């Protein structure tokens, strides 16, 4: 029972970070109909910025803020300088460009910082607090929960209650009509990229203290798990991203704990197939395919 509780909480913490990352992917999908394969690399770049800033100033929180800003800036830059020029008639072009960006980013980071694993300290204690003899969450885990909750709620409010959010949704759903109505579609798209990159940077900051260390390939596996989570939940649905993220995190934790961490990818594949066989567009999909 102890083990189950431990694994559940471990999985929830992991899942929540994956949910944030999946949310970033869904954001870009809804805005630009592209799967942003460079999300992981962009997040890692932002964390490196935080690392430098923290090393220079000595404060984790300044570094944290710097990471978020770097994420926003990087997202804007990628959209304005690269994605605008890509021929979107074939969706594969954007995928390849994103993959090229991944290689470029990771290589530049490796050249600047080296490929060694740099230690990333957590701002709060990572020792597990015990309640009734069970080692449960640590203060850091609670911080992770809180941060992701704030982000999810903020994004939900942004999209549903603010004019900017309405414009972003309009630009994504019906770009031509929105343009006619005076919405700066290109600007909304860039804003979407910036927000997504910022959320990705946050997820990176949250997850990296739990990894082996900071290095250019650190977010690769997180990206893959998050992409799986987004697919499970349905790429069109932010709620789906959150649910998918938590589900994938829990499954990874249970399988790693009870069977072995090497079989975890197999379990993820089984989950994916199980969900997609029943609902080919994800759990929370709303888009209907034309059937004949």
């Amino acid at each position, binding site marked *: 029972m102890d*083990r189950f509780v*431990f694994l559940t909480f*471990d999985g929830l913490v992991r899942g929540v970070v994956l949910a944030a990352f999946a949310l970033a992917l869904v954001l870009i999908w809804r805005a630009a109909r592209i799967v942003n394969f460079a999300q992981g690399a962009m997040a890692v770049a932002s964390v490196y910025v935080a690392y430098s800033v923290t090393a220079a100033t000595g404060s984790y929180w300044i570094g944290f803020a710097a990471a978020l800003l770097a994420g926003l800036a990087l997202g804007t830059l990628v959209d304005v300088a690269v994605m605008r020029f890509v021929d979107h008639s074939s969706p594969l072009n954007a995928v390849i460009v994103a993959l090229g960006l991944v290689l470029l980013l990771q290589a530049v980071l*490796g050249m600047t910082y080296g*490929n*060694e*694993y740099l*230690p990333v*300290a957590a701002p709060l204690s*990572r*020792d*597990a607090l015990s309640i009734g003899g069970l*080692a449960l969450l*640590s203060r850091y885990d609670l911080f992770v929960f809180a941060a992701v909750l704030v982000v999810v709620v903020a994004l939900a409010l942004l999209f549903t209650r603010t004019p900017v959010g309405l414009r972003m949704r309009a630009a994504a759903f019906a770009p031509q009509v929105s343009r006619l109505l005076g919405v700066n579609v290109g600007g909304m798209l860039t804003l979407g990229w910036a927000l997504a990159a910022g959320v990705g940077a946050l997820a990176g900051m949250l997850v990296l203290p739990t*990894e*082996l*260390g900071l290095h250019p*390939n650190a977010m690769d596996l997180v990206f893959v798990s998050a992409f799986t989570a987004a697919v499970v939940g349905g790429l069109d649905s932010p709620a789906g991203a959150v649910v998918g993220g938590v589900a994938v995190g829990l499954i990874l934790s249970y399988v*790693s*704990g009870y069977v*072995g*961490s*090497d079989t975890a990818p197999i379990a993820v594949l089984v989950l994916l197939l199980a969900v997609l066989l029943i609902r080919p567009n994800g759990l929370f999909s709303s888009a209907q395919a034309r059937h004949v």
Partner: protein
Amino acid sequence: MQRIARRGLTIAACLTLLGGAVACTGDESGGGTAAVPGVSDTEIVVGTHMPLTGPASAGYSKISPATKAYFDHVNANGGVYGRKITYKVMDDGYNPANTQQVVRQLVLQDKVFAVINGLGTPTHSGVLDFLKSNRVPDLFVASGSRTWDQPEKYPHTFGFNPDYTVEGKILAQYAKDNFAGKKVCFLGQDDDFGRDGLLGVEQILGAEGVVARQTYVTSNTNIGPQINTLKTAGCEVVVLATVPGFTALAIGTAARVGFQPQWMVSNVGADYQTLAAQLGDAKGLLEGMLALNYMPMATDESDPWIAQFKKINDQYNAGAGFDGNTVYGMAVGYLFVQALLAAGEDLTREGLIEAVEKGGFQGPGLAPLRFSADDHSGYGGQRMNKVEGGVQKYFGPTYETDEGDGPVNEYTVAPPAPPANGIPTL
């Protein structure tokens, strides 16, 4: 019509060219070319494959620059019999598939004279057959697997690191003598490195003596489940056969769940400076860590070898950090130069192999260096060290043993003093 004629002409032209090409180039005659590959009057080209990037690169990426710096020092002093040593280092990222590619490039394209200090058990085991069929000397493999010690099967392959079985036996013997009655457990890499280490431990303690065994793979950095299992089993002494990144990960993860056993770490993953850099602020967790080593301690300023290597490091390695990996890299360079000197001025691949098999090399190592016609294993022992007050210090005697069921003995021969300029003489 025209198109067909044009196509016919192109086909005819191709066939003529082809016929000419085949006629002009025959197969090379069977005997070797007169010149030795990689050796000229002024140069010796050797190569290696190392993980310069990837999860296993922590620490190891410092070895080849150190060896290169040592070769630069030798070259600046006239080289070996007037030949300068060129060291080609290829990155394989600890991925066996990349090792295949880069080793083929070294042998077939760069035409190296020998491959020295190829690093990694999973990576190097894949290229043994290729190196054998191309008769390339494969010296001083940077790994303690027993695969390199097979003189009948791989006559050109020689090890350097003490075998992992030897290590396991020494650690287990120490645990038996000093931690009698405590639960001993094992966490190792899921390949020959981990398996051979476990074999050594079980030789001394017996299979029942090891309470729990866990493995990890370098591609999966979440070893929480393994640590949890060891904690639940009540382990008091944990033997680690881990690369430096994973030693740090194991110790860090364990501390977080309140599990702090006596750590006994294989030489491969026990360099204090590398681990401290990995753990950052948590480096206090390394206090009391027991480990093995067979080279002078990088922090031991009083050791003449360290002084010599430090000088070379400052001059030729752009003052890169000086730690156990640097000492290791330079020791390998030193041994290779000794082998080249013993092979004589008329340098051939067979001559080099014979020179190495003659053995009798003495260098900075604390343990006996075993090279003979039947023994390609390399160093055969280690000495215990402990981390106290942030410094990793040796204590006790050097132990030596074999890969089989021989006992663990003390080895009392001390290393000689280094030559004045750090370059060996015959």
